[in-house]
């Protein structure tokens, strides 16, 4: 009798201990064991644009193979979402598909966080259609505006409303959701003001949803980053865009030479200046700069131009004092 109660009591005690252990587990990492021979250790926390994510994921994977002691986590909550976390100090690196805004810089400043900007690749926003679409290969910016402007909401639903030569085919729209930098960029360039767009399309922060939507519907149109187009070749096709100088297809060459307007753009990451003082973060930045060409190509982005690359190396030298 006595021993049974004792057993029960000790079981409860163990349970309580377990609970207590779960309570603060994870919060503290075991103290870093003495680093042997300059081996890098630590965590690099990255968050931000879904457009930049594939690129940084490739870089992070390769970097971690060479530096197994460093753990790099890459999360995706959109350019704006990324900056929100970055500017309160939750992350070391923020990925962005547009430059940091003045408002965001202000928030960073109030929290004493200094962002250091790097251009990491070039990207093109692509307008995609279903492979079964045999009536159009090129749209002008005006046509895109007719299609996506706020006035189109509820009224422009058929292809021949864009151009009488197009068929009487229902037009379903897919695109980035309002948290993504792709959304800001597209609305700014096509509708003239950031955030202004018809709302009766299928928004998603996950570009794969846009791919699935357009792939499954002959009349569908969507917009997303060029890398997703290259990754999903055959499932969807990218349209040429006429920004005033004739139809230009999105590609590495047309983005770098500046002819793919207005939907070609640079992509950014922002390092927290303070984090760059940590050896593992500085090493990651250096790793990226040294390998940007192969990383961008693996991730199906457009590499930096020679000019951009040289500038990046120079800035990095200045910061890390090499």
């Amino acid at each position, binding site marked *: 009798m*006595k021993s049974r*109660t004792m057993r*029960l*009591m000790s079981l*409860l005690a163990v349970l309580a201990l377990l609970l207590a252990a779960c309570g603060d587990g994870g919060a503290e990492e075991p103290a870093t064991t003495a680093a042997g021979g300059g081996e890098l250790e630590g965590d690099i926390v990255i968050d931000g644009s879904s457009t930049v994510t594939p690129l940084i994921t490739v870089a992070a994977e390769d970097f971690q193979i060479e530096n197994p002691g460093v753990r790099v986590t890459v999360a995706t*909550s*959109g350019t*704006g*979402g*990324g900056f*929100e*976390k970055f500017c309160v100090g939750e992350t070391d690196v923020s990925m962005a598909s547009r430059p940091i805004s003045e408002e965001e810089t202000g928030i960073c400043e109030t929290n004493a966080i200094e962002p250091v900007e790097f251009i990491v690749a070039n990207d093109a926003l692509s307008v995609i259609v279903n492979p079964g679409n045999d009536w159009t290969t090129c749209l002008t910016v005006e046509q895109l505006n007719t299609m996506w402007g706020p006035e189109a909401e509820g009224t422009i639903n058929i292809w021949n409303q864009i151009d009488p030569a197009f068929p009487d085919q*229902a037009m*379903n729209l897919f695109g980035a*959701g*309002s*948290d993504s930098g792709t959304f800001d960029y597209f609305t700014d360039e096509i509708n003239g003001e950031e*955030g*202004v*767009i018809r*709302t*009766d*399309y*299928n*928004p*998603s*922060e*996950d570009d794969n*949803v846009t791919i*699935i*939507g*357009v*792939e*499954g*519907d002959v009349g*569908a149109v969507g917009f997303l980053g060029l890398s997703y187009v290259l990754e999903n070749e055959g499932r969807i096709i990218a349209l040429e865009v006429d920004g005033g100088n004739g139809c230009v297809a999105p590609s590495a060459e047309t983005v770098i030479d500046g002819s793919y307007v207005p939907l070609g753009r640079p992509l950014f990451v922002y390092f927290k200046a303070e984090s760059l003082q940590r050896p593992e973060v500085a090493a990651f930045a250096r790793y990226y700069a040294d390998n940007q060409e192969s990383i961008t190509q693996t991730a199906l982005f457009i590499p930096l131009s020679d000019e951009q690359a040289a500038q990046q190396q120079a800035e990095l030298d200045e910061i890390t004092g090499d």
Partner: protein
Amino acid sequence: MVIRTDTALAPVSLRATGATRRRLYVQALFKGLFGLAAFLTVGVTILIVLSLLIPALRFFSEVSLGEFFGSTRWTPLFEPPSFGVWPIVVGTAWTTGIALLVAIPFGLGVAVYLSEYADRRVRAILKPFLEILAGVPTVVLGFFGLFLVNPEIVQRFWPIGTVSTFSGLAAGLVVGVMIIPTVASLAEDAMTAVPRGLREGGFALGGTRREVATSVVFPAALSGIVAAIVLAGSRAIGETTIVLLVAGSRPTLGWNPGDQMQSMASFIGFAGIGDQPTGSTGYLTIFAVGLLLFIITFLLNIVSIRIVRRFREVYE
């Protein structure tokens, strides 16, 4: 010689020995622990309600109830935002309605079969399968709906109107599949609980199995069956992942079940994935919708309790 009777009597009847006292302490300790567990659930429920209510009230200080229930445009995350909640309420009604249309006949069919027809061997095979179906994670069901049910079944064979790549119809069907085990196992429990004597009475009167099942067992178990359906309906209303994956994220207000849709729960999921700045109206919207969802399921539960009471037949 004095015989001391007091020593023999006093300790036993009035004062606890060490061992007995320990037992009493343990008793009290366990009573306390179990009581704590019980009241913790009450506390958690109250906390949930409060955590919904406070931000929801802040939401309604920024957006009027008139706009929330009076407008039919739901674009809370766009500029300029519009907060007419009807499109996602109707989206919820569509997916839940379709789910129940699937789950009620199939679930009750399974229940009748298991309790009235199946012999032990068949039950031994069927029950585990039902449990496996109940255990499939909803995210798996969601992908099943997105990549199989919608393109291969719904888009091919649905006869009326067009079906988009994301459709409320397919979402409803898959949610229906998800809640079949709930309907089936609860309804089966209710039917097996019908006293044997009633069935035997039915057979004695010359009833066939089918007649006994539909005219004796089914009515006798009706309150339990209704409860099963309402519980399954509540799960369907609150289902987030499947609807989010299969129905898309465009709120529509219309008569075509093949359209993209957003339900209240899938809106909460969608808005939660994107990063709404804490305290912004977009962020508060999540709680307002959550509160509405809570109220709707709460009202349904009250109605169901009424119905269950009304149809309850008590057998001694």
